[in-house]
């Protein structure tokens, strides 16, 4: 089926070339980092994880978000999702590939990555994260490919594939739960040490993932003559609304616990993220604009996807609303959550993190690679769709 990705109009090729440019830049930047070391990034012994791990964390959520299509379609037999379930599965594949690239970019000794397999360590959450991420990736590749092939031949998918489809549902939940456990099981990092991290991750994932799929569906409607169907889109928007509200509810609970209990350790990171944290006469606040943009975009996005006029009558505003939710939750989880957790340090110092240009280009390049893969996969899926219709 890959040959379908090789036939496209000039906009298709221009878009791929555009992404390819950023991929090429990132390759050069990565080589620089590979030969110099991670010192080319803005990370330090105080903020020891930066953009790479925060993007990884967010993208695990995007990958898990695909299950919000798979679950209603296969468990509840919600037929309207039949046409776009494949979009969710292919989004999961490209998001997971981005996750793996971000992990590799973050390793100090990438060539030793296989040590995680050679010396399996069940008491490390990173070991389990590797298991579930690879598992979910393979499940999505198998399910997506087999079902698409069946569709192309216009036969029912083989029975055995449903075994993998059903397994992929708990796997989707597990990838983000285990990713949350990387953080919430660490003693001495108050902001992360919270039992609500896993549910909060899942809630924001189930909003951000489907939000991206809606945006993609709207773009595909314009450029690829692919209509996901009104019912499917509207149902997804409903899912996004509830999941987004759940996420904000959980964020609110964090605020309550921190500020009502008045325990300094529980308040510090929230203060740092949203108001700036005063420490020895200096106010540290470099993430404050991002956090308020997160809140603002949430309300803008919610208004656009809740108000009937923008939600039902305008594809453009609906896509804008979903994009606002996606960006909002990216700011929350892809920026604030990971970077904020390092402030203050265990020895009560404050070190602010600023990514370097090299690091930014690698990050952009990995995103571009993900969208490159996504474009190719969607191209294949939609070509099959058109072939069947014709």
């Amino acid at each position, binding site marked *: 089926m890959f040959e379908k990705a090789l036939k496209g109009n000039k906009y298709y090729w221009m878009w791929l070339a555009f992404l390819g440019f950023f991929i090429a830049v990132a390759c050069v930047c990565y080589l620089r980092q590979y030969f*110099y*070391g*991670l*010192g080319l*990034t*803005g*990370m*330090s*012994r*105080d903020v*020891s*994880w930066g953009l790479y791990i925060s993007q990884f964390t967010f993208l695990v959520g995007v990958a898990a978000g695909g299950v919000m299509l798979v679950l209603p379609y296969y468990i509840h037999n919600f037929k309207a999702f039949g046409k776009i379930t494949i979009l969710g599965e292919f989004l999961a594949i490209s998001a997971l590939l981005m996750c793996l690239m971000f*992990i590799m970019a*973050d*390793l*100090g*000794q*990438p060539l*030793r*990555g296989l*040590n*995680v397999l*050679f*010396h399996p*360590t*069940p*008491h*490390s*959450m*990173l*070991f389990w994260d*590797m298991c579930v991420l690879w598992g979910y990736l393979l499940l999505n590749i198998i399910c997506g490919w087999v079902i698409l092939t069946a569709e192309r031949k216009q036969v029912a998918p083989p029975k055995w594939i449903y075994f993998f489809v059903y397994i992929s549902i708990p796997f989707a939940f597990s990838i983000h739960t285990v990713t949350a456990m*990387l*953080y919430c099981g*660490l*003693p*001495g*990092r108050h902001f992360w040490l919270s039992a609500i991290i896993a549910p909060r991750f899942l809630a924001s994932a189930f909003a951000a993932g489907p939000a991206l799929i809606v945006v993609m569906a709207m773009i595909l409607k314009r450029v690829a003559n692919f209509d996901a169907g009104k019912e499917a889109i509207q149902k997804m928007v409903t899912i996004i609304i509830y999941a987004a509200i759940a996420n904000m509810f959980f964020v609110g609970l964090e605020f309550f616990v921190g500020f009502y209990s008045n325990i*300094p*350790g529980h308040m510090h990171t929230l203060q740092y993220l949203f108001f700036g944290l005063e420490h020895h006469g200096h106010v540290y606040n470099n993430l404050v604009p991002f956090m308020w943009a997160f809140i603002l975009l949430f309300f803008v996005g919610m208004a656009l996807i809740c108000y009937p006029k923008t939600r039902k009558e305008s594809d453009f505003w609906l896509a804008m609303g979903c994009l606002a939710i996606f960006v909002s939750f990216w700011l929350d989880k892809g920026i604030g959550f990971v970077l904020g*957790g*390092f402030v*203050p*340090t*265990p*020895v*009560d*110092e404050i070190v602010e993190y600023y990514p370097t240009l090299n690091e930014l280009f690698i990050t952009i390049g990995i995103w571009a690679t993900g969208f490159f893969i996504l474009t190719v996969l969607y191209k294949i899926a939609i070509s099959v769709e058109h072939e069947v219709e014709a």
Partner: protein
Amino acid sequence: MDKNRRNFLKVAGISTLAGLGGTAVVDRLVAGVNVAHASTEGGHGAEQGGHEAAPAAHGHAAAADPNANRYGLVIDVKKFYEDPSLGEKCVQACIKTHNIPEFDEKKDEIKWIWMTNYENAFPENPNKYRDEETESNQLPIMCNHCDNPPCVRACPTKATFRNEDGLVLMDYHRCIGCRFCMAACPYGSRSFNWRDPRPFVKELNRDFPTRMRGVVEKCTFCAELVEKGQLPACVEACGESKAMVFGNLNDPNSEIRKVLKENHTIQRNPSLGTLPSVFYIV
């Protein structure tokens, strides 16, 4: 009727199996971390009134071996306050012994033992009306060689591990540089080689390896010296001042146990249940 019974048996059988399997997995998870832990209960638990409950809770831990070593360190903070040059001596001894690079940029910084303020070493113990001596002086901090180390729990490759003497060590050749241990350490004791450290080693000690970029490192309690019956470099640097006392916590007749018996000591953030092996006389 018959069918119901069959279904019941099926469900009962499967849940029993799942239950057994589940317990086994959990046991393995906990056991991995606690094997070493158990061997030290005898010596360590005695001082730690509040912590005795923790090891007891893991009922299945292996029998304590009273003959095993368990190294610890007592730091007399008052002596560091009296002689401010002492701290610098310790830090320099460590740098020379372990080929620790000295960078110009703070971002690249690597440190095993360093001098800091009381409020930074013990942030869980704030005091608005602190005495002047504590306020204006510094004390040394380093890896606590925890009895229950979160870094060892977090490491995905066992590159950081706890040896039979209770020292938390690093295998620089196995470390993949994921820095999970740095996020896990509640004492900020770990450093990462952000770039090639070798050009920044001022005086090379040929008896200890240099590291390469991309791996984590930290204080080892000078395991290589302790093995030969010598004292760690920082303890040695304190000389006759007795500002630092190093020894086997499991030996009731050791000097360190005598010092612990005679003085009130505290540990850094003990409420996290990590059971640090570094004690401070304040």
